């Protein structure tokens, strides 16, 4: 469903020069699977997912969604994914219903189907209480629900969640996770990025630990735990990152020695 090969993205930064936000990242995700991207802030998770949603163009490498290349067929890719992140806010001057309906129309749903889907979505996500509330007046939890509804209104085969529980209280976060589980059960192909171990343990079939733009380890949780002989996920995560940083420093100082 999703195939990412050697994906690289660089930025030109005044202070640091050329910075690789994503360095030769490769992974695949199958339908009915939740793929977890686990990494600290600034690891490159958001950049990777932005490339998959065609908002950013990769510097090199390829990524395909349902067989469509994100660079060559961005419109087809966008048609087939539902994307939700911290940066996809909702409009202040639109009601919950208008917002979801607007996106449904943009996805080209015919009127009768759209009506049906809207009713079902508002029922399953329990959004009928605030269906006519303006975005500006909603609570964070309500906004998150509208965002989810907006992302899945067109019933996409691929859904990308970028830290969907960030800033939510436990109750709402639990509901969001339940929704993700529900979508998986419907056979969707899901990428779930987070920095919270508990969520990974609970939801993800496979995970990739990403740090400074590179994937450090990938596999099912048990696979990783066995590989690195570390039953605790959190410890595993810290070990991997610390080891990578050490190596990196070593190579950098070697490089410096070699050049000076």
């Amino acid at each position, binding site marked *: 469903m999703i195939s990412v090969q050697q994906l690289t993205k660089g930025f030109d930064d005044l*202070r640091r020069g050329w910075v690789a936000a994503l360095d030769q990242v490769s992974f695949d995700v199958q339908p009915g699977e939740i793929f977890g991207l686990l990494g600290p802030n600034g690891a490159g998770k958001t950049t990777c997912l932005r490339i998959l949603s065609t*908002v950013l163009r990769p510097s090199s490498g390829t990524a395909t969604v349902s067989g469509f290349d994100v660079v060559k067929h*961005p*419109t087809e890719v966008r048609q087939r994914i539902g994307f939700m992140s911290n*940066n*996809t806010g909702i409009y202040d001057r639109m009601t919950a219903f208008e917002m979801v309906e607007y*996106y449904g129309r*943009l996805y080209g749903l015919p009127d009768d189907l759209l009506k049906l889907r809207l009713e079902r979505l508002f029922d399953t996500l329990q959004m009928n209480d605030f269906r006519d509330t303006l975005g500006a007046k909603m609570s964070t939890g309500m906004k998150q629900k509208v965002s989810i509804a907006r992302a899945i209104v067109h019933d996409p085969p691929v859904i990308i969640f970028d830290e969907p529980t960030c800033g939510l209280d436990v109750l709402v976060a639990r509901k969001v996770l339940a929704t993700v589980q529900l979508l998986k059960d419907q056979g969707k192909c899901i990428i779930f990025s987070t920095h919270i171990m508990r969520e990974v343990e609970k939801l993800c079939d496979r995970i990739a630990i990403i740090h400074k733009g590179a994937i450090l380890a990938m596999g099912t949780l048990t696979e990783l735990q066995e590989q690195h002989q570390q039953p605790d996920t959190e410890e595993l995560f810290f070990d991997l990152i610390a080891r990578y940083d050490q190596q990196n420093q070593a190579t950098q100082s070697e490089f410096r020695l070699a050049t000076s």
Partner: protein
Amino acid sequence: MNWLNVKLIFLREVRDQLRDRRTLFMIAVLPLLLYPAMGIGMLQMTLLFSEQPRTVVILGEKHLPPPQLLDGDKFVSNWFNNPADADKLKVITDTSVELVGGGLHAAQNLLLLEQARALREHIEQHTAVGNELKQAETKRRQRLTSSADSSDESLAMIQQRIGQLQARQVDIDHELMDLFASSQIQVLIVVPDGLKENIERVNRLIVERDHSHAAGFSYPRPTIVKNRADDKSVVAYARVREVLDAWEGEILRQRLTAAALPEELTKPVGSAPLDLAAEEQISANVWSKLFPALLVIMAVTGAFYPAVDVAAGEKERGTMETLLICPATRTEIVLGKFFTVMCFSMSTALLNLMSIGATGHYMLSVAGGMGRGALAEAGVITLPTAPALTWLLILLIPLSAFFSAMCLALATFARSSKEGQYYLTPLLMVSIGLTVFCLSPAVEIYPVHQASWFYSVMPVVNIALLLKALLLNPGNTGALIFAVPVLATSIGYSLLALWWAIEQFSSESVLFRDGERFEVGLWLKHLLREKEPTPTFTEAGFCFVIILLAQFASMRAFGQSIASTTPDEMGVQMMKLMVIQQLAIIACPALFMALILTASVRQSLRLWLPKWKFVAVASLLPFALHPLSLELMASMQWFFPQLPEGATRLLKAMGDREQSLPLILIALAAAPAICEELAFRGFVLTGFNRNGRTRVAICLSALAFGVMHMVPQQVFNATLLGIVLGLIALRSNSLLPGVIFHFLFNSISVVRERVGFQIADGHAEQLRQSFWHWFVLLEDGGLRYTWLTLVISGFAASACLWWVWQSGRAKPTSKPVNNLFASGLAPAKQHSTFAP
């Protein structure tokens, strides 16, 4: 392009804007409330203003001759054009004070009279001192001219006395000024004793035709004191002048009647004006000045706030990414937003104009009905006619489109609404500057003077000027002809601006501009140290701007240098300057920028050897293209204004047989071929081509190349040639074919001019009989091409260009450099990739 998406986005944005109280207030409520409120305020102020009468004091009113000038404490109303004006002047004289009797007013009036008398004393002193000064000066003149020592005073003593008198006069004047300023008097009239008797005496002299008493005509005249720096005094004086002129006219009439002389005596010429302006035309004149300026300003402001809200606001509120992940393409999103902004821009402009028109119309009719105030004098202004309003609507569309796209691009660039607001001021300043320029009566869209065709292709100005002409006279066929270029160019500019907006919206660095700190030092270091192999788009654009500015700055120096040479040396001097200009202004910026800013000069300036085929084509193509270009320019001569003097001189110098041909070829063919190619097909084209869009790069570099030529004809010609040159340069990936083409093309022009002159000088018959007459002919003393030549050249040129167009397509020569960043992150790695 999915228009359904555009419509969806448009409808959502419009609804969004209508739900925003600030935008609604700015666009609808403000104009509807502001102008009526301002109108009421103005009306109130004029009412208050007209209540205030001004004080005129007359001393010695007993000596005024008949007919009667005063009526109590007013002037007789007959003497005013508008009898109601009599109330606006309060006249205080000895008699009027007695009439009023006691009370507060009387005391005040007495004080005024007191002040007036003090003023009169000073005036008399001033006159006396003035007389003494005159005498002293006469005396000095006598002393200087005649050596006879008749008086007892020495020259020094006289000089000293003059100095004293002058100082005294200054003192008196100061006192007089202070006194007048501190008094409540706006105008003071001092009537000298015996004025009535003097006038009667003169009248008698005239009746008797007695010429022996010529001296009797000079007698003391009244003095009117006013202060030009005081507005109240100015207004009062204007009215007093009106009264006195009318009154004096009557005295003169009586004098003439008594002397049995015709009244026309005083008006030997007596021209009469004939005003053809109908009432609508007067109104049309007012509207034609007011509406274009207002339309431009309103279209900008109306576009700006919604643009900031739909673009920068979207970033600020964190919904930009939500929008970008919807299936609509960037172009569709921008179009949807663009139509929204345009819709608001147009409605703001129309609402404002309607509100201003209605308020103005209403106020004038109110003022006219009351018959008072300055507004009543403007007459009743009628609203513009239906055809004029239709034109206003039609022209508003391209104007709004242009500003909407501009504002949208600027607003997309901005990180936040606040940053967006900062861009309003410069935009507004430029638009106001342009409209003020259009307000001048001398600036018209008609081709009355040379450069005026230019106005019809200038953005914003063209629309404002056309509207001005059409509001003045909607059926104006002379101006209607200009509607075609005006509308065409305006739509072109709007599309360009829209393209820019779409570019902005597709640029990752613009959309995801984070609050990164900007430091000049860091930026410079980055620019100079971490060089990229070829120039960026911005650097190329900057290079062009530098060339343009340098050329502009050098114009004066070169002009002076040419003006200071003798006519004989003019040609040589001009050739020298041409070479210097090419080297210093065109080649140097490109070379230096390539050296400083790029890692590979060779690559930036395309210093590779081409395939021999390209060299061959580049050597053939000029011969095919020159006849076409020449005849095209000749057939379009009507469109362009006359060549400016400098260009004519240059053309003459080119054909001047006195000049040596090699020198001319160096100056006019070799130097431009090398320098201009380095700059425009080297640095500029490489930079523009960075993001891999070949066609855009060719067109932009050609346009830059054209604009650099300044003279309209050459701009047109050079742009067309620039396209050919750009194509050759990109396909061959070498500068050499372009240089060859450029050199040959210019050489042919020079040679044609010279040969033409030679043949015209007595070889005309020879040409007519030779084989060559099938291809060329003589016309107006120059060599021209026949249809046969044109057809052959047309085919040859098309074939050559087709070959060039096809030949490079499959090859990766024009492959975007951007993709190469993929292979290695550090720019340093790329050299190996690029080496041939």
